[in-house]
């Protein structure tokens, strides 16, 4: 199969993730959409790596996975602490500061 199709899939997944971040209201779901975007990037890296016949893209995918894992650690810590003090993980409720 033509590897370009995987690029289209990556772009589609990235878009789904980006739209999800914008329209979903639960912080956990928003965060999962960000993870989907990062994985779409991984798919693009691996596909380009295959197309170009060099391994850089596959190595970068590993780096992305580690970064995503670190982001989960920090992100969930913040979301859980917000949830424990507000009993809500909705991003709409976090509105103490407004102009």
């Amino acid at each position, binding site marked *: 199969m033509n590897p370009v199709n995987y690029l289209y899939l990556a772009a589609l997944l990235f878009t789904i993730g980006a739209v999800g971040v914008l329209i979903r209201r639960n912080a956990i779901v928003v965060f999962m959409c960000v993870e989907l975007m990062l994985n779409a990037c991984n798919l693009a890296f691996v596909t380009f790596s295959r197309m170009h016949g060099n391994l850089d893209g596959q190595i970068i995918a590993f780096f992305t996975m580690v970064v995503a894992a670190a982001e989960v650690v920090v992100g969930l810590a913040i979301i859980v*602490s917000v949830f*424990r003090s*507000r009993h809500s993980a909705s991003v709409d409720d*976090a509105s103490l500061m407004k*102009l």
Partner: protein
Amino acid sequence: MNALTVHSMWTTAAEPLNKIPAPKIEYVQLAPVLIVVGAAVLGILAEAFVPRRGRYVTQVFLTLLALAASFAAVVALAAGGYGTTKAHIAAMGAIAVDGPALFLQGTIILASVVAVLTFAERRLDPADHGHKVDSFAAEAAAVPGGDHEKAAVKAGFTTTEVFPLALFAIAGMLVFPAANDLLTLFIALEVFSLPLYLLCAVARRKRLMSQEAALKYFLLGAFSSAFLLFGIALLYGYAGSVSYATIAGVVDGSVGSVDPALAQTMGNDALLLIGFALVLMGLLFKVGAVPFHMWTPDVYQGAPTPVTGFMAAATKVAAFGALLRLLYVVLPGLTWDWRPVMWGVAIVTMLGGAIVAITQTDIKRLLAYSSIAHAGFLLAGVIAATPSGISSVLFYLGAYSFVTIGAFAVVTLVRDAGGEATHLSKWAGLGRRSPLVAAVFAVFLLAFAGIPLTSGFSGKFAVFKAAAEGGAGALVVVGVIASAIAAFFYIRVIVLMFFSEPKADGPTVAVPSVLTTLTITAGVVVTLVLGLAPQYFLDLAGQASVFVR
């Protein structure tokens, strides 16, 4: 190498591989970063092994020592000629050791030192249960106001983890302007962002706001770094490499390829332009430029004020460094494509920041919008696309970071029963009650406004001069108008402090320890020295303004 040979690389791995050459890492030239990372790791170990009583002193000492050693390493490298004649690319092409990198690393370290002093301040709040308290929560994981937190406060816990977290953030910031490939750029971005998200969440007072700021910063920051990463993927697809030099070569056509797949993507401008736009978006988010500035006011307001000062100064320096390197090293062949876009961004950033700041009633939000306007002024220098553009931006960043940290340090001093009194109405008549603090704050505001004899004027003059010489005269006109609008709200705060009656229930000005005093003094001294005698530092920035390719 085509796809088949790659495939054979993992199917034939059972055979003994030929010798893989070990990477050559120039540890001495990377010393500024390595020292800070090492100290951060030691700081984590200190959290685990040093008894609670001794942790604060250990961490503060370790942090300041590491920053001093790191700064010494930067100076030694610069004195050894790595900023000028011996500038080159270290660590297998990942890190550039050149003038702008060393200059910005030095600036980041000095700004961090004064910011860390405000982190360590423990005299502003009255002692709680006989224990000195700083700006950070007794136990950040505890629910604010809950039993667990009360017990932690009673036991005198403090979040000394902020010092190693700050060191990790500083390490990432040191790498960010020196990153010479897109992967290093992304990793450095995450290394400095993740600790900052956490630092935002650990305020002692107003913790709900602090956690809200962290949540917003984290979600938007992760969103923007995903865009950056997708941009990197597209640029990798375009050039077949993430190295700045190779991408630059492909953009200007000096690197060709015989590989048919690569030759096809190299001719694909859509990959290049979309990828570049996405990477630029990620960097402009960190810079806080309109329209990617939405996080700035909320995060600046909610984060603990010492963290806000640190973030406002050091992040901006690091992000502008990376932006300059990307535009000047990777994409000189695309100058005609990126300049109109950056023109637009710079104009809306300058005007947007200055105009919205007028309506603000909270001093921290006011300073946040002012930082957005300043990002716009800096972008004007970036757009110049000349060596004097680089040197003026370097100088401006150095001048701006000390003013910012000093201003936020003054904000920590003005307090009432609820902690910091950040509402502007509370600042009325401050000049009558505490003339010294109000005068110092007035100096910082005048520097922000760019009044002559302050560093703000020298910086703004250098940036606008470079922009005008670089053919962006219209931008300078917009910049001057935005400066005039901005001057209005800075002066308004000064008028409020000195020419209105103090309220009966107004805030008190806490007497700081030597730490915050040092920070504020450093801010004032740098502001005045760079305003009165900027030439030496302008020359220094001028010498440091050549990127290695």
